[in-house]
């Protein structure tokens, strides 16, 4: 060996030594603690949609999940049955004319701060939500409450009595169902008033703090990182777990690893491909819950091709519902073809459409397109939607329809949709409150189909669908006092919509959650509510 080689040999050993030392330094980190604390529920979930924890503002899944565990409403959803039950209001009466609702507030309840819960807090909460007029405010303002009149229409004559005066009679179930929504949460007036800045009704403070009477209090929210809740000692029912820790984890594969290693108790975003493995895992199992979100493909009626009734019907016959349900959305969606999700009053399970290419071709020929046509499907750039859009592309091609896919960000897709500038679009819709009017009013009612109408929040309007037949039925159903008649109205309008609307409704979301064995009682909220953490127990954790 030459001197040079020997010397550089020394050099390379030196280099190797340095490299190994660097690795050893990194490897010296302590061992992993692979178990969650016994008194803490640890959840992995994508929570980057969380923009505010103020119940008058929050309207995103993650925000509502937390608020459902921090605040109480006058009328609650029972986690066991998912039916509305008396909450902070122990009872209520409706006046003869159906316009005045009087709620009796439960006595002896206190906020986490120690302040008593009174009708004045309830009135203040509704008033501030109406006056802040944020996204969820319409759930309350649809009853005729406005920032101008809310001081007169929502009053608390004494600490136990809350009176709501509505602009016209409504079906009592419609009003009480709407009050179960998070925007109806009762906030601690005294605490909130201490943090008012200018005209904000405490919004800036309440976005990142809590003032409720629910099972938990907000301890910390670090955006895109975590939410920490702590049990409220003043809550009137037992809360088995002292803390809830929601970790922001976007990637489903990462969530699965965390769950399998015992670093989280519940993983809420599970990929369809991981379901079987988690179910078969030695310490994990799956829990699937039917949620309220609906997938649909809709056609803009301003487009002259899509405006032909046979064309949308042909599209409904070309979609391979079962094929997709058994493959790309297996475990995350199930076939559902009407605008009310299962779990809602009046929901139907009719499935009039299955893939029938011959029938579709015949309809297209009737419409004057025997050779099909070219069309664009607008979607937001999410993997699940891309997969579904590609499957739709294949299915439509069987009828000669050449569909191209236009992918944009969520915000851009929404801008195009709201401006009625799309052709076909693949979209989802989640109900806003647990009453059938929430979906009926957007899928089956359109008060003004002109461009000037600007009903941008309404799906029928966005698709330029006049909904002539069902619009009066939607109006009739919101005032119908007889529940059976109300149910029948919703059933009928769904059947009309299935046949003649430009909405090809395909799926209802079934949400798979991966859960560690021994963790019990978690409810994602079904179709009508948000997550319930306070019902969860972990092996060995005793109730307070």
């Amino acid at each position, binding site marked *: 060996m030459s*001197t*040079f080689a020997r*010397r*550089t040999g*020394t*050099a*390379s050993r*030196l*280099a*190797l030594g*340095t*490299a190994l*030392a*660097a690795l050893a330094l*990194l490897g010296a*980190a*302590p*061992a*992993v*603690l692979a178990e*969650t*604390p016994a008194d*803490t529920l*640890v959840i992995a979930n994508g929570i*980057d949609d969380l*923009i*505010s924890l103020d119940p008058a503002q929050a309207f*995103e899944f993650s925000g509502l999940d937390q608020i459902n565990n921090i605040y109480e409403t006058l009328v609650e959803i029972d986690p066991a049955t998912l039916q509305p039950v008396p909450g902070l209001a122990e009872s209520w009466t409706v006046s003869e004319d159906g316009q005045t609702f009087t709620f009796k507030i439960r006595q002896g309840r206190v906020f986490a701060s120690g302040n008593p819960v009174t009708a004045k807090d309830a009135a203040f909460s509704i008033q501030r939500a109406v006056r802040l*007029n944020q*996204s969820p405010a319409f759930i309350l303002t649809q009853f005729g409450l406005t920032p101008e009149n809310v001081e007169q229409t929502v009053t608390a004559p004494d600490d136990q009595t809350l009176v709501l005066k509505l602009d016209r009679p409504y079906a009592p179930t419609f009003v009480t169902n709407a009050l179960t929504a998070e925007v109806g949460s009762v906030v601690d007036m005294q605490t909130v008033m201490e943090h008012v800045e200018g005209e904000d009704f405490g919004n*800036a403070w309440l976005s*990142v703090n809590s003032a409720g009477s629910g099972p938990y209090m907000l*301890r910390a929210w*670090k*955006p*895109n*990182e975590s939410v*920490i809740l702590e049990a409220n000692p003043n809550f009137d029912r037992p809360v088995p777990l002292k*803390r809830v820790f929601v*970790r*922001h*984890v*976007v*990637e489903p594969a*990462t969530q699965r*690893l*965390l769950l*399998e*290693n015992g*670093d*989280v108790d519940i993983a809420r975003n599970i990929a369809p491909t991981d379901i079987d493995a988690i179910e078969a895992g030695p310490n994990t199992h799956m829990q699937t819950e039917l949620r309220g979100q609906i997938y649909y493909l809709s056609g803009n009626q301003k487009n002259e091709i899509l405006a032909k009734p046979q064309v949308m019907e042909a599209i409904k016959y070309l979609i391979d519902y079962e094929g997709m349900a058994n493959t790309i959305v297996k475990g995350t969606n199930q076939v559902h073809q009407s605008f009310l999700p299962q779990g809602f009053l009046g929901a139907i399970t009719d499935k009039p459409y299955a893939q029938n290419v011959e029938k579709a071709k015949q309809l297209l020929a009737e419409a004057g397109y025997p050779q099909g046509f070219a069309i664009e499907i607008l979607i937001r750039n999410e993997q699940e939607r891309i997969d579904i859009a590609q499957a739709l592309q294949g299915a439509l091609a069987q009828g000669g329809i050449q569909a191209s896919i236009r992918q944009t*960000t969520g*915000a*851009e897709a*929404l*801008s195009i949709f709201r401006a009625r500038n799309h052709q076909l679009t693949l979209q989802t819709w989640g109900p806003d409150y647990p009453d059938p009017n929430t979906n009926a009013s957007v899928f089956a009612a359109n008060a003004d189909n002109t461009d000037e109408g*600007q*009903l*941008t*929040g309404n799906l029928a309007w966005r698709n330029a669908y006049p909904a002539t037949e069902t619009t009066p039925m939607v109006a009739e159903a919101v005032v119908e006092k007889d529940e059976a008649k109300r149910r029948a109205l919703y059933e009928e309008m769904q059947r009309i919509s299935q046949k003649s609307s430009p909405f090809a409704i395909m799926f209802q979301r079934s949400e798979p959650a991966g859960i560690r064995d021994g963790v019990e009682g978690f409810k994602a909220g079904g179709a009508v509510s948000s997550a319930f953490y306070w019902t969860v127990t972990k092996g060995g954790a005793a109730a307070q």
Partner: protein
Amino acid sequence: MTVPGPSPAEIAPPGAPGGGLAFPRILRRSATTFGTLLVTLFGLLLATFLIARVVPIDPVLAIVGDRATQAQYEAARVALGLGRPLWEQFIAYAGDVLTGDFGRSTLTSRPVLQDVAGAFPATLELATLATLLGVLVGIPAGVVGATHQGRWPDQLIRVVGLLGYSVPVFWLGLVALLVFYGQLGWTAGPGRLDTAFELSYEFDVTPYTGSILLDSALSGAWDVFGNALSHLVLPACVLGYFSLAYIARMTRSFMLEQLGQEYVTAARVKGVSEARVVWVHALGNAAVPLITVVALSYATLLEGSVLTETIFAWPGIGLYVTNALFAGDFNAVLGGTFVVGVAFILLNFLSDLLYRIVDPRAR
């Protein structure tokens, strides 16, 4: 007997100024650079502002959401000041930025600066450790590659480096997690801390800097420090791998260039030990361009690696800005981009300064 090799000053071309005048000159040039820096920052602000205004994402919708009525939409649009002419919007924005106000993020409802102050340290920890790894392993590997040109250590280092370039980072990240966290249990999992430590960090550690490592060390919470380090190891190694691949390749090429120079031959003829020739003289001269390489690699990592941050649930600046961009949260995009830009410019400035100190020719 050891004969001292040529100092960098000795290899300077004839006519290069001596060391005595260098210091004030550095100061003068630094002042000029500082002026350029301010102009660059202004340009950065203007460019990001204009880009944010022309992309087809509606920032109003990002705030009011899917269900908003037209009246709510218009009210939010006016509140955001989007109805005013563009130049007026920019002047107002630049004025706010000068006072340190980057506005409020619509995604988090918090001041952008507060968000960035939370996300940037996470990225800084990751990027610093990754760069450290890249330097500590990449430079020796590059030197060995150059001294063993064409032989097996060189081939091995090149193959390893090539993998670093060609393997997708999300794949490497997932596999690393699966093996070292899922199967072997050698490292902690995704996120910056285990839940138990996250709680004690939340309750016991004072957040001086936002860097968990620094804060826990300053608070003497060594268990939190250890846990944070065990979480940092894997993502830092994954990112560091890419960084070391780049640094090793560049080091090898700079070293080959230096080893072919006459002064190296001269030093060998004088009987200078080979280790000294390679590690002191040749590497000393290769260090000059290497500073730029390392600084650029570090700066790139400081922009945040979206995919690595996604896989490892690492709440860094890359993920923050990307989320904000998709959601049309332009205050956050502008603030995040600006801070990253400032870090980038500062690093360039520093490497420039360092370059002049190391290389006498540049004084």
